[in-house]
């Protein structure tokens, strides 16, 4: 009895702590949403608040009216996320399957070839010059997809580890005896059995593509090619740039949307994540746990 009483207090205590922590995690996002539905003037006078005096859907109306900008950016983000994720899944699994076979000649060298990319990088300028002058990705959808994000060594190692630990090699032997080619094995056995890890890295690359703003920063200068994150970033950048060059342009004023509109666009940018997260939560969680398994 005494034990269980102690346990009860412990349960209450940790639940209180965890509720507080959970609130800390969620409330900032609520604040973002509340600022987006606060009337602009209230925002300026009373400041950001969870309980604004005056509500207004003006910011969202503005987004609807200027749908050409926001919706287009949205479409680009979605397209990039889909294509990029599919591409990285295909590349990572095609690369990981052979690496997971212990008898592949040159496996060590190839693994190191993959691993080394995690340790050393050539820096921004050389990659920029290469992607723009040789591959001409500038202002194309490929600028979001190709540089940096398509295939990460980390993903390859994750998938390889999963393949080699979770798929018994006897299955391959059996298939080979039945005369299956490696491509058939990959398609018919590896992909279906590797589904958990593929879902996981799919989610992570999807998230990476959705949240990326850096490629847009370097490779996109046409506003009709901006992704939603790049659009958010550009608004900050334009404001900062104008402040910095005040000497040269006495008459400059950027058409920067008002604060509540900026907040609304930011909220719209995270909305899909908030919507799908409850359903995909377990995959994220299991994926992170898989990630911790030694590569």
């Amino acid at each position, binding site marked *: 009895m005494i034990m269980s009483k102690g346990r009860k207090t412990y349960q209450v205590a940790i639940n209180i702590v965890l509720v507080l922590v959970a609130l800390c995690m969620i409330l900032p996002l609520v604040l973002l949403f509340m600022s987006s539905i606060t009337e602009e003037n209230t925002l300026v006078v009373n400041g950001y608040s969870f309980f604004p005096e005056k509500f207004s859907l003006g910011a969202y109306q503005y987004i609807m009216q200027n749908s050409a900008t926001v919706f287009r950016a949205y479409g680009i983000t979605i397209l990039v996320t889909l294509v990029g994720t599919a591409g990285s899944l295909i590349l990572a699994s095609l690369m990981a399957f052979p690496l997971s076979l212990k008898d592949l000649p040159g496996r060590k060298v190839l693994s190191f070839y993959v691993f080394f990319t995690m340790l050393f990088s050539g820096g921004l300028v050389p990659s*920029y010059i290469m992607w723009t002058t040789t591959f001409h990705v500038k202002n194309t959808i490929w600028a979001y997809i190709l540089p940096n994000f398509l295939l990460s060594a980390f993903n390859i190692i994750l998938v390889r580890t999963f393949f080699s630990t979770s798929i018994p090699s006897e299955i391959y032997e059996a298939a080979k005896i039945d005369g299956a080619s490696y491509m058939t094995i990959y398609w018919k056995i590896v992909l279906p059995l590797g589904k958990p890890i593929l879902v996981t890295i799919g989610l992570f690359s999807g998230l990476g593509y959705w949240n990326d703003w850096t490629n847009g920063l*370097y490779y996109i*200068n046409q506003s009709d090619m901006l992704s939603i994150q790049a659009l958010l970033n550009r608004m900050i950048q334009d404001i*900062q740039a104008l*402040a*910095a060059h005040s*000497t040269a342009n*006495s008459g400059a*004023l*950027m058409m920067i949307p008002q604060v509540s509109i900026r907040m609304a666009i930011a909220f719209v940018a995270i909305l899909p994540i908030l919507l799908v997260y409850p359903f995909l939560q377990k995959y994220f969680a299991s994926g992170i746990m898989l990630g911790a398994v030694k590569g």
Partner: protein
Amino acid sequence: MNCKKVCSLLLAVLLVAAMFTGCSGGGSESGKPANSTATGSTASGDTASTGINFDEEPYEINYLYIVAQEGANQQKVAEAVNELALKELNMKVNLIPMTMGTYNSQMSMMLAAGEPLDIFPTFSQNFSTYLESQYLVDLGQYKAELKDALEVLGEDAETGYIGEFLVGLGQMKERAYPAGLICRKDIFDETGFKLEDFDVNTDDYSSFDKVGELFAKVKELHPDMVCLDGTSIMGRQDGSYMDNLGSDFGVLENYGQTTTVTNWFESDQWKTFCEIGRDWFQKGYLSKDIAVNQDSGEIKMKAGNCFSFITNVKPNTNVEKQAQTGYETVVVPLGKAMKYSNAVNAFMLSVANASKDPQKAAIFMNWTYVSREFNDLINWGIEGEDWVETENGMAAYPEGVDATNVGYHNDYGWAYPNQFVGHAWEGNPEDIWDQYREYNAGLIKSKAFGFVFDSTPVATEEAQLNTVRDQYWNDLVFGAVDPAEKMEEFNKALYDAGLQTVMDEKQRQLDEWLAKQG
């Protein structure tokens, strides 16, 4: 085992290096013919100046320019400019519009990569890096092609020379950046002050007290209102009170009426400005955010709770500010207007080294200084859709079109070659461009006008000084910290970062230049 890995790694890197050298070899070769055609065609320059060869394949100009935002009619404008240039110059034009933020984050890499580019805007603080990295074409070679543009610019074209190298041409606009206080007229009138009450000048700093009195009155009438907001104050107006000789480090004080290079941040003037800022800040006239705020005063005023902001002023400031803020404004001058080199060359138009035919680029550039249609197109958009000509020859929105739904509208005359040949926007006086010319002719002229400091020898120091300045000056000028305490620290940091070296170099070059002027 380890050795094996290292070896294979080395091999891989070598292989890559070998491949890459191969690539770049090709790249630089393709760059070379461009140069040789350039020199080749300079020889035959006479034919170019006599007329345009309409039989040859049209050359495509990549024209990068700054826009306020990209509107829905961007494509139409691009087509119209293309058509116009094809008709008049037998050239095609690829317009590359960029907002300021994009320009800042992409320009240096575009240049480093040698991306296709003919004409683009440049800021004076980058000239030394650009010259060192050979990003620019010396326009001095193309004086014949640029005849009209040089004529339009007159003596102001001299400010584009760094040594013997003509880096670019300035835009036609005001040639001075005097500081002014932009106030909301409705509130200003409420206070009972008259514009004539203000005679703010730097001969007697107590004249700034009047502005403090104005703020106090505003505060009394509207306790919740922010009296002064935005991104500037006197101490930030580094282009208004002295000739900055290209950078803020080592200047000619007193509107350039001296030839001794001094440190403005140590001067009594700057100290006084900081003290005024401190006083205003402590009295609650300034926005609490002001030292880090990045929203312009125009945006703040438009939002409705800001009485005034400080910025550079020019003849038609109040018309422009009314359009930008939505309020009628009163402009209180906060000093005299001075013309100096950096006022002209702070922002210029240059020809990029990546240009396949710099001579053609120069011809095109020349044309942009005289073509009325071109300047109207890039600034106001398509006539009939984005603007119409009013009876008195101004540009105005067509019926049913306004700032919220216009397809193309920049109002960035300051960034384009020659707004004086184009239409002025409705609301300006009809003779606005004459007013500008008169204004420019009547300015105080810095004794160093025409001198351009070549910062290449002190580029390292200047880069560091910029960082130090950015770290300290906002806090000081907006009074967030006590100048008595921080100013010394700031100046010590400046000297540690090499301020004396820069000042000595400036003085040396200036003395040399003065000697040449006789």
